[in-house]
Structure formats: structure tokens, C-alpha cells
């Protein structure tokens, strides 16, 4: 019998429908793989009982002929999603012991479609990080390895990426505020899409920067992303920024035919000091799309350089507001107080104990840029620059560009701990190619497209027009077929 955990969602769906396999067997295979993969530290709260009962219910539905795409498919859920009765702590100490009394809209939709939850996945604390090293659970580890170093799976959705790449689950949810789906997908040789802002409900997802946050799928290939995105997306009255527009059948858009599509190559993404391998990968990807019949066009996105600094005003500003709710009163951790200490000491000690250093840093930077006297100089200026960044994209799309091809990351996965002494900005540079997409609210997908000299996966990013994820996925599908990336990490864990 084939190893069930290695199936794609599409293949498992077809086998489940035919009755060749059961969700119970598939789920058990994943649970066994998860228990053997503690070294990856990807699953941080395992939910085998939930999984088994959901699998049993899915098998009943399948038998009755009620077979949504995800019926019986075992998934991992990022710890940022609130899941009823199951620890949901955004990888933070401040939410230790928090068990939501409600279910996020995304997980509700996945479960209604018959999906099975295997457990909660590691991530950077409050999704703030690019290496999964800020987690209260400790580092998640990349299943890819080329020497004795342990490598980062990227972040913030590092546990999701590691779990999918290591075949611990068939797919996983991720969230992306500045690149947190696409960078880890690139680091682990998997596919991840951040949809258009407003496509997927944010309700029940622990908020980091509300104007940038979007949830999306992380999967083994483009088809699986199309399948899973359809199940996650849709209007939700509980999220006032959710878009009330129909969700198409994204999988049906995957024809592989991109003849006549115009692919933009933005010159500003050719960074100084870009590794030759990344440049080569980008050129190879461009050639693949040209060979598939697309028209390649050089384009300019002049404000690209200012995306990261604008992001590092806007995201911390929103985070400082969103994270004000963690005060030791309603949920999570509360510091022990000494005799005579009052409520202010309670807030200050609780937040000092509960937030890790990166979260504290960003909350304080956000507090500063919003404080009296600096609001215009920093926050308003950043929002104006954000408008200009979006306008750059509006212009190229108006000129007929269908999608934009860029590298996903400036390097392959680096070693855990290697950035420990670097200043925070060096880590922030990981998101240099992805963060523009969040600022402009666009859909972006990372597709594995090659390997570096040491054998580590590298990804290319495609950026699409707003609400046209179907078209974007189709270009990604064409790139995926041309790149033919099939490598898997050798099992060492």
C-alpha cells in the first residue's frame, strides 16, 4: 500500500470518493507520522481525539455520497486560528491556557466541508517573525537538511510549512501579514497562496496587523491550494472587511493554458547583492512562462524600495493597538503581584512576562509611531507611501499586465540561530519581495521552482490582480508544470 501521508489533497479526495481508502486510515497514518516527527516541533498541540471523531464522521458522509472536496482530508491548523476548546495561543506565553469558546470562520468552513484537524501548528509569536524562532514553543525545524545544521522552515507559518513538507498532513492553514505564508513555503519546497485582502474571513484569527492579515492555504501543489482556498474563502458578516463577492471554483481555472497572458518582470526587484542562484531561478522561471506562450514584459514598480520601511511603521502600529487587549484581565497569563502593587503594575508585569522580545519591540515601535507628535511624521507618511505602492501596481495592471513574477525570498533557508546576533532589520529583509503584496492587498503565491547549489528548495512568487486568484493559480500551475519540482526532503527526524 502506498504511504497515505504522501498523497496530495486532490489524490486523496479522489480515492476517498471511490472508497479505495478511508479517512480513518488516512488520518491514522498522519497521526502516526506526527508522533514520529517531534524533532520538527511542527505540531505543538496534537488533537488525535478530535481528528479521529472527525474522520469517522467524514467516512459516514462519504458513504452517504455527500463528498465536498475536503471531506475526510486531514489538515494542520496554525496556532493563530481560534479553535473551540483547543489551545489557541498564537505561540505566545501571554495566551497560555487560553481555550476559545468559539471557532474561527475559516476552521468552521473547513470542518463543515468535512476536513479533519490533526492539531495546532507552531509559528512565530503573534505571527511576528520570519524564522519561527520567536515561538514560546521553541523553534520549528525545516525537514530539509544539507549538513548537520538545523534549518529554519521560515516564518511566521513555519510549523505549517514544516508539517506539509514532511508529509505530516495533507495541507495546512497559514496566515500572511508580510510574507508569512509565501516565505516559509519557499523555504520548504511547498506551495502557499495569500489571497486578496478580504477574500478570507479574519474572524477568529488572532489579529496582528488587521489591514494586512490574510489567511490562506499551504499545500503540496498548486491544485491543492486551489481546492483548499475555495473552502476557506467567502463572505463573512462577522468580518467587516470581508468581501461580498462570489467564490469561484479555483480548481476549474487550472487549464495550464497561459498563452497570451502578460507577465510583468519588475526591475526594482533586482536587488543589489542578490545571490546569483536567485537571479538564475528568476530568469529560468521567466523563460518557462515565455515558453508556455506568455508575453514577458519589463515593468517598473518605482516605490518598491519603500515597502519594507512603510510596513515597519504600519504593522507595528496596528499591532500595538491589537495587542492592547492582552492585559491579564480577560484571558491568558496574569503576573503575580507583590504586596501593594496595583492595576498598572499588573498590566506592565503581565505584558513584560507574557510577550517575547520581538513582540515587545514591535508593540513599542508601534506605540512610538502613533504617539502624539509623531503620528503625522511616521504613521500618516507610511500610509501615504502605502497608497503610492498600491498605485504602482494599479498602473501596471491597467497597462494589461496579468501577473508579476519575482523571487519569493532573497535566499534559501538559513540555519536556526544564525541570525541571533544580527540586528532586527536584517531579519526583516526576508520579506523584501513579499511585503509589497500585503501593502497593496493583492493575491500572491509562492511556487517551488528550483534548488540552490546545496540542494535546498527555492521559490518564485507570482502576484495577481485583485480577486483574480483563479487566473493567478493557473499561471502558477503552468510554472509548476514547467519547473517540475518534485524533490522531497530525506527523512532524518
Amino acid at each position, binding site marked *: 500500500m502506498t504511504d497515505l501521508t504522501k498523497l496530495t489533497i486532490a489524490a486523496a479526495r479522489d480515492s476517498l470518493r471511490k472508497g479505495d481508502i478511508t479517512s480513518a486510515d488516512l488520518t491514522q497514518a498522519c497521526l502516526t507520522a506526527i508522533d514520529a516527527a517531534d524533532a520538527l516541533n511542527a505540531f505543538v498541540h496534537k488533537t488525535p481525539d478530535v481528528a479521529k471523531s472527525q474522520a469517522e464522521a467524514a467516512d459516514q458522509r462519504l458513504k452517504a455520497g455527500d463528498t465536498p472536496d475536503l471531506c475526510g482530508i486531514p489538515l494542520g491548523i496554525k496556532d493563530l486560528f481560534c479553535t473551540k476548546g483547543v489551545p489557541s495561543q498564537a505561540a505566545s506565553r501571554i495566551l497560555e491556557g487560553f481555550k476559545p469558546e468559539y471557532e474561527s470562520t475559516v476552521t468552521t468552513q473547513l470542518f463543515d466541508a468535512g476536513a479533519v484537524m490533526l492539531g495546532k501548528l507552531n509559528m512565530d509569536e503573534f505571527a511576528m517573525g520570519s524564522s519561527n524562532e520567536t515561538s514560546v514553543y521553541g523553534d520549528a525545524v525545516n525537514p530539509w537538511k544539507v549538513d548537520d545544521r538545523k534549518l529554519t522552515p521560515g516564518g511566521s507559518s513555519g510549523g505549517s510549512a514544516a508539517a506539509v513538507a514532511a508529509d505530516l498532513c495533507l495541507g495546512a492553514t497559514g496566515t500572511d501579514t508580510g510574507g508569512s505564508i509565501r516565505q516559509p513555503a519557499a523555504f520548504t519546497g511547498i506551495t502557499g497562496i495569500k489571497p*486578496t485582502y478580504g477574500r478570507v474571513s479574519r474572524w477568529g484569527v488572532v489579529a496582528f496587523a488587521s489591514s494586512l492579515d490574510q489567511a490562506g492555504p499551504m499545500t503540496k501543489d498548486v491544485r491543492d491550494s486551489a481546492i483548499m482556498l475555495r473552502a476557506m474563502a467567502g463572505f463573512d458578516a462577522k468580518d467587516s472587511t470581508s468581501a461580498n463577492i462570489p467564490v469561484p471554483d479555483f480548481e476549474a481555472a487550472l487549464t495550464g493554458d497561459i498563452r497570451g497572458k502578460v507577465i510583468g518582470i519588475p526591475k526594482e526587484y533586482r536587488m543589489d547583492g542578490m545571490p546569483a542562484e536567485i537571479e538564475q531561478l528568476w530568469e529560468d522561471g521567466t523563460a518557462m512562462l515565455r515558453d508556455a506562450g506568455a508575453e514577458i514584459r519589463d515593468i517598473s514598480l518605482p516605490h518598491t524600495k519603500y515597502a519594507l520601511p512603510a510596513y515597519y511603521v504600519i504593522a507595528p502600529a496596528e499591532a500595538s493597538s491589537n495587542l492592547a487587549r492582552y492585559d491579564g484581565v480577560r484571558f491568558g497569563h496574569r503576573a503575580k503581584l507583590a504586596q501593594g502593587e496595583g492595576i498598572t503594575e499588573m498590566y506592565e508585569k503581565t505584558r513584560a512576562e507574557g510577550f517575547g522580545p520581538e513582540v515587545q519591540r514591535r508593540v513599542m515601535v508601534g*506605540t*512610538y509611531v502613533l504617539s502624539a507628535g509623531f503620528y503625522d511624521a511616521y504613521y500618516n507618511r507610511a500610509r501615504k507611501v502605502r497608497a503610492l505602492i498600491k498605485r504602482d501596481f494599479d498602473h501596471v495592471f491597467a497597462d494589461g499586465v496579468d501577473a508579476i513574477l519575482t523571487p519569493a525570498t532573497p535566499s534559501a533557508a538559513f540555519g536556526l540561530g544564525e541570525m541571533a546576533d544580527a540586528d*532586527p532589520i536584517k531579519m526583516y529583509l526576508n520579506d523584501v519581495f513579499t511585503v509589497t503584496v500585503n501593502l497593496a492587498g493583492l493575491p500572491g503565491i509562492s511556487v517551488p521552482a528550483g534548488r540552490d547549489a546545496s540542494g535546498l528548495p527555492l521559490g518564485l512568487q507570482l502576484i495577481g490582480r485583485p480577486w483574480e486568484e483563479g487566473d493567478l493559480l493557473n499561471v502558477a500551475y503552468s510554472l509548476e508544470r514547467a519547473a517540475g519540482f518534485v524533490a522531497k526532503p530525506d527523512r532524518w527526524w
Partner: protein
Amino acid sequence: MAIDIDTARRVAKLARIKVEDAALPALAQEFSAILGFIEQLNEVDVEGIEPMTSVTPQRLYRREDVVTDGNQQAKVLANAPDAREGFFAVPKVVE
């Protein structure tokens, strides 16, 4: 702009995060580095540009102004570090 120790202390206070005095110089230095990075934004000509309020042109969704849920006191309090007699409990705030 260089952030001095007093500013770092004030920001920590505003953010309600306790920072020991000994940690303030390093914090001030980190803020200075991050703000130095952010200051690149001053190069951009933003004359006449409106600050972005919404990335998609749509108006925020509004619903009828009616009660949609309630009567879940136990659930609301279930995760509180300290709840008594149907309330969140905190240290004394008024004498």
C-alpha cells in the same frame, strides 16, 4: 533620529510593558536602528497623496443595529485569570 533612554522609558510606559532600567540603553539603541530604517520614507514625495484608509475600495460592511447574541456570561468569563461573582476581578483601582 536617535532615541534616548528617557524616550525609551516613556514608550515602554505608554505600551504598559515593564522594562528594567538596565535594559533601557539597549532598547533605545534598537529603536534608533529601526527608526533610522523607517526614515527612508522621508525621501518619498507624498505631496497631495491621501493616507490609505482601506486597501480595497469597498465600504465597510454594516449590519442592522440589533442584538445578535448575548446571555453567555459563563463563556465570556471562562478564560479569565480571575473571575468572581460573574465579573472579571482585578486589583483594587479606587480607594
